[in-house]
């Protein structure tokens, strides 16, 4: 036992005991109110942040559909419901993989001082951790049109190969069917920009009904140079990718659920007991039917989203 003083003086011992009693009393008296205060203050801060986010004109307000906001994963014994923000990471066009190049990554705050062909590059870039920055998503804009054009070009190439008997008719038909399904069912949200300052990004993309600025995680992707069996040299590649938009599952409040609940019941009737709970719903292909609802999705001052309205589409 370590109570009391080491020198054994009675006065020191008494003082130590008095100190113990005083502090014990303090926690006995103040512990409960302090803990209650902590709960209340923490909740007030969290809810204050929510109120601040939603005050005034939203940073963005877009009318999306089931294509961009399909139902999220519904766990077993979970009555909550969320919509999942579905977006495509490619900027579209020829440079879709390389648009986040070394200079751009450097400007985002990554240490790209080592050239990709330097022998130290593999070790250096293998140690780089992801950063939280801001991404811009464009809805049904130039990127979507570029993406469609790319698909049509691919199909044209495939058609030419079929004419030369280097591909089968069946492959072409499947590819055409997939594009037809994408035209009515695929998300039209595309990543178009990344930056460190959301205000700068908003200045560059001012249309608040078409562009979302949201916190995102950016990662470096480095692949060392290699030689293919035919002797072709593949130089080392350094580029980045947005791996995650930070709020992708958007909660649906009870007041906005009726339309979704109706659709859910209908889907469950058609799909069997698994319905929206099935993993396929989460990881499987995007539904190929035309969208059945539209959603007004707002982003507030803290770039946090909320669902303002859900409407049924005929």
């Amino acid at each position, binding site marked *: 036992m370590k109570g009391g003083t080491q020198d054994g003086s009675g006065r020191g011992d008494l003082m130590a005991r008095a100190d113990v009693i005083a502090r014990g009393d303090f*926690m006995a008296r103040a*512990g409960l109110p302090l803990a209650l205060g902590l709960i*209340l203050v*923490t909740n007030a801060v969290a809810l204050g942040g929510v109120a601040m986010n939603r005050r005034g004109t939203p940073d963005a307000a877009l009318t999306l559909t089931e294509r961009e906001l399909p139902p999220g994963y519904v766990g077993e014994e979970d009555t909550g419901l969320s919509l999942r923000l579905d977006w495509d990471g490619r900027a579209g066009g020829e440079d879709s993989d390389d648009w986040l190049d070394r200079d751009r990554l450097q400007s985002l705050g990554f240490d790209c001082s080592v050239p990709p062909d330097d022998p130290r590059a593999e070790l250096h870039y293998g*140690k780089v951790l992801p950063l939280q920055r801001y991404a811009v998503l464009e809805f049904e804009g130039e990127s979507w049109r570029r993406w469609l054009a790319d698909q049509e070009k691919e199909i044209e190439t495939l058609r030419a190969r079929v004419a030369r008997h280097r591909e089968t008719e069946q492959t072409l038909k499947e590819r055409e069917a997939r594009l037809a399904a994408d035209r009515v069912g695929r998300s039209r949200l595309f990543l178009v920009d990344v930056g460190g300052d959301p205000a700068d990004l908003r200045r560059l993309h001012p249309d608040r009904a078409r562009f979302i600025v949201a916190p995102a995680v950016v990662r470096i992707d480095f692949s060392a140079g290699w030689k293919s069996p035919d002797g072709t040299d593949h130089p080392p590649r350094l580029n980045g990718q947005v791996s995650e938009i930070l709020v992708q599952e958007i909660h649906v409040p009870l007041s906005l659920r009726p339309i979704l609940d109706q659709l859910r019941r209908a889907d469950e009737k058609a799909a069997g007991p698994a319905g929206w709970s099935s993993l396929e719903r989460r990881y499987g292909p995007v539904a190929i039917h035309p969208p059945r609802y539209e959603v007004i999705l707002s982003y507030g001052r803290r770039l946090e989203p909320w669902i303002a309205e859900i409407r049924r589409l005929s």
Partner: protein
Amino acid sequence: MSNPEAQKRADRIRSFRDELRQLEAEEILLLTDAQRERLSRYHDQTLRDLAGRFDVDTTDAQKQMSWGMRIASFLGALALCAAVFLFFRRFWGLLSTPTQVAVLLAAPILGLLGTHLAARRDRTLYFASILGLVAFGCFVLDLMMLGDIFNITPSPKAFLPWAAFGFLLAYTYGPRILLAAGILALSGWLSATTGTWSGCYWLSFGERPENFLVAGAVLLAIPLVPHRDRPDFPPIYRIFGLLGFFLPILVLANWGDTSYLMLAHKAVESFYQIAGFVVAGLAIAFGIRRGFREVTNLGCTFFVIDLYTKFFDWWWDWMPKYLFFLILGGVAVGLLLLLKRLRALSLGARPERRFA
């Protein structure tokens, strides 16, 4: 006087009585009947007081029962936390947003009031431990679900109020399990904050085990503040603080590519393998010197784990298995002999520690 101090006093009285009986049987010390009677009355009265005020165990059977009750209360608290979490998930979709917020806010408050009442009514603190851990779980659920309901960007800041709540409950009511909860939350915040110093996204902090070293150092420093009214808390800080060193070092000694160090992963692994032995050795020496049993035990445990991991790397693939395990057994015996010698040296040098 705290509960652990009262328990130590009761244990000392029992030991003293046993020893006195032995001394009298060997006729080394003979008390008069009056002295024996007075001493016995004094000890009986002291034990009654301690049992009345602190509900201490005064027999071996009671002690064993207490351990069982402690384990039962810990498992019960975990099960109740899971029940609260799953109950909320089962029904939250049926509640409007204001009702969800009200339920989330009310749950930790009710848990806290329950803990307070249980601590006042039951001196053993078993029920206070259960309700305290449930209150802590409700507070964690509260902030997590507010984040989900209002689509709040994830942040490590939530760890701070969780840690503060755990510490407040522990220092007010005394259960060490709540201190452990607070320590884990504080470690989460410190490690995530250390990770963001390097600029990385906070949820990546686990990808660099070195981030946990700062938390370990802070936890080891906390017992430097006197804990005279909570003498059972410093060992808990020391255990978690040392784990904050030993576990990252163990991971880095085997997976060097997860380190911040700009060295080839084999070099990193070698560095941390040596560091593992050095830190474990220092912990053993420090624990013996200061009489911190938990520090010595943890140091020994990780010294052996580091050693066995190394043996596995070196020999498992090519050595006959019987020989591998024979060497492990031999090393264990060698370590026992070494520790026995250290113990003897320590007892010889510091005889006053023998009865500490």
